């Protein structure tokens, strides 16, 4: 177990370096002229040349790469093109905000999907199951931004109960968390249901029922415990998707998170911020993946990673 954890953490070092190289390549080699990209479509030659000089784009690529890596490894991601603040100052506080949103949404989705999925499987092929299935299908087919806009319309404008956006009090959390969580819950409910239907079809369930165990205990103790392995896998994947979905949710509710920062920096061509935000976002994904892997190994000791 310890070896697995150490191995995986060591694996993150080359992954991080590769990621930085990839980000460097992305913005320096592929699109042709990064200075042009920064300056915009209608920039004059002088502007482009001054940008080239400032960022060192006029130097050979390998020199630029070494300089970039040396700076980044010292924690210097450059300064924003607009505010001139260090990139790390605007990126790092937002990691927490994004993570908070994603984790709360995932908790909401986990609880909802476990309750709905188990009830649905209990009443398999009966009206209640049908209703849950139809609702989860509707949830899967409704994009986050439609749910979010409808939520804003009903709860913030029509009823005036909740704030439209931002992140100050607990009320600000309600709409974003439910919007992002509902979408995940819809996907997960479907899968929890099919895992539970599988588990409820096993022989030991028949045995338990024959013993006279109450239906509640059959479902939530005998079946759920045995269906838990695939469900844990699903939840692991779900956290990654929730983090991805947070990009859109943050933009709907003006959430001061990493995703919104990234989108805005792309729209305003703030290249250093884009690079920094992408790096930290990708590292979060890699770390979440690592943690999920370790949890699998802990939940299911049969799993051996080499």
């Amino acid at each position, binding site marked *: 177990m310890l070896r697995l954890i150490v191995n995986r953490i060591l694996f993150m070092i080359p992954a991080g370096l590769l990621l930085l190289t990839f980000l460097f390549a992305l913005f320096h080699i*592929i699109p042709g002229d990064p200075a042009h990209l920064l300056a915009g479509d209608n920039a004059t030659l002088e502007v482009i040349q001054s940008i080239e000089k400032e960022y060192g784009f006029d130097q050979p690529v390998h020199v630029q790469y070494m300089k970039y890596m040396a700076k980044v490894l010292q924690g210097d991601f450059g300064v924003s093109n607009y505010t001139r603040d260090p990139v790390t100052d605007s990126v790092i506080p937002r990691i927490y905000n994004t993570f908070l949103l994603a984790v709360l949404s995932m908790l909401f989705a986990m609880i909802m999907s476990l309750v709905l999925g188990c009830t649905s499987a209990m009443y398999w092929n009966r009206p209640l199951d049908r209703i849950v299935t139809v609702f989860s299908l509707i949830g899967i*087919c409704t994009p*986050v931004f*439609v749910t979010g806009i409808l939520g804003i*319309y009903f709860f913030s404008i029509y009823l005036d109960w909740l704030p439209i956006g931002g992140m100050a009090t607990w009320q600000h959390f309600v709409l974003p968390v439910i919007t992002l969580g509902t979408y995940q819950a819809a996907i997960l409910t479907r899968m929890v249901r099919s895992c539970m239907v599988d588990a409820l079809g096993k022989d030991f369930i028949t045995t338990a029922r024959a013993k006279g165990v109450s239906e509640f205990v059959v479902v939530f103790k005998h079946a759920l415990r045995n269906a838990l392995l695939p469900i844990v896998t699903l939840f692991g994947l779900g956290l990654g998707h929730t983090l991805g979905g947070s990009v859109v949710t943050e933009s709907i509710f003006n959430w001061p998170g990493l995703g919104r920062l990234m989108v805005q920096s792309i729209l305003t061509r703030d290249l250093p911020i884009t690079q920094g935000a992408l790096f930290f976002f990708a590292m979060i994904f890699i770390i979440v993946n690592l943690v999920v892997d370790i949890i699998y190994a802990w939940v299911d000791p049969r799993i051996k990673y080499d």
Partner: protein
Amino acid sequence: MEFLRRYCRDRMGVFFGLILLFLYVVALTAQWITPSDPFKINLRAGFEPPSAEHWFGTDQFGRDMLSRVILATQVTAKVTGLAILFALISGVPIGMFVGYRGGWIESVVMRMTDMLLIFPTIMLAIVVVAVAGASENGVILALGLSQFPQFIRIARGVTLSVKEELYVEASIAAGSGWFHILVHHIWPNIATPIIVQATLTLPVFVLNASALSYLGLGVQPPTPEWGQMLNEAKDFLLPSPYLIVGPAIALFLFVLSANMVGDTFQETLNPKLKKRK
């Protein structure tokens, strides 16, 4: 034909198949069926609530929302269709090749796809758009690149199992080269799982294409797109909430019918799946 007959046994599949067909007919004929010009600006007729003349009302520039929703259907159908084609054309040959050849190329390619699969579609798409620029072609490239690892994996998986078959061995013994084997023996086996994957990818692409344009990173105005129309409508939620109705319904209907058709397709091609349900 046999496939169609089996598909038609699923009544839900047929119903949503017809809706999807209808949406594609609308997409193909969009230029001719729009009730008024979707680009014509008439500021005096702005923010008109739904009426017999304008079913979904008019937007801030007085453009007919119904016409814009109809034209956006074409934009979405085009963008997602081309993105699937792109993912397919770039992913399947790579998957078949590395699956058949094996060796270090296979490990390198598969490691790379594993790494890409850690990241959700929307994140990869945003990275590509950041580089390629926010435009229709940017979205096609972004969606295509974000899903092509999936196609590599499927093509490789099937190739791995098929290349052990006796008829492949016989073909090698008869002296055929790798290209001949890939085209004549492996490709026919890959077609079915690839078609299933392509239909399952369609709703994902529709959702992500509209999410990108909601964020302002996708199809650019004045070309209408559902996500972008919803983003604009959000600013006028208080005075004219009806602006969200048209694009939201169209988007929901497209994703729903594409999902249902994909599921039915999959069940028709692998009847085993149905029994489990």
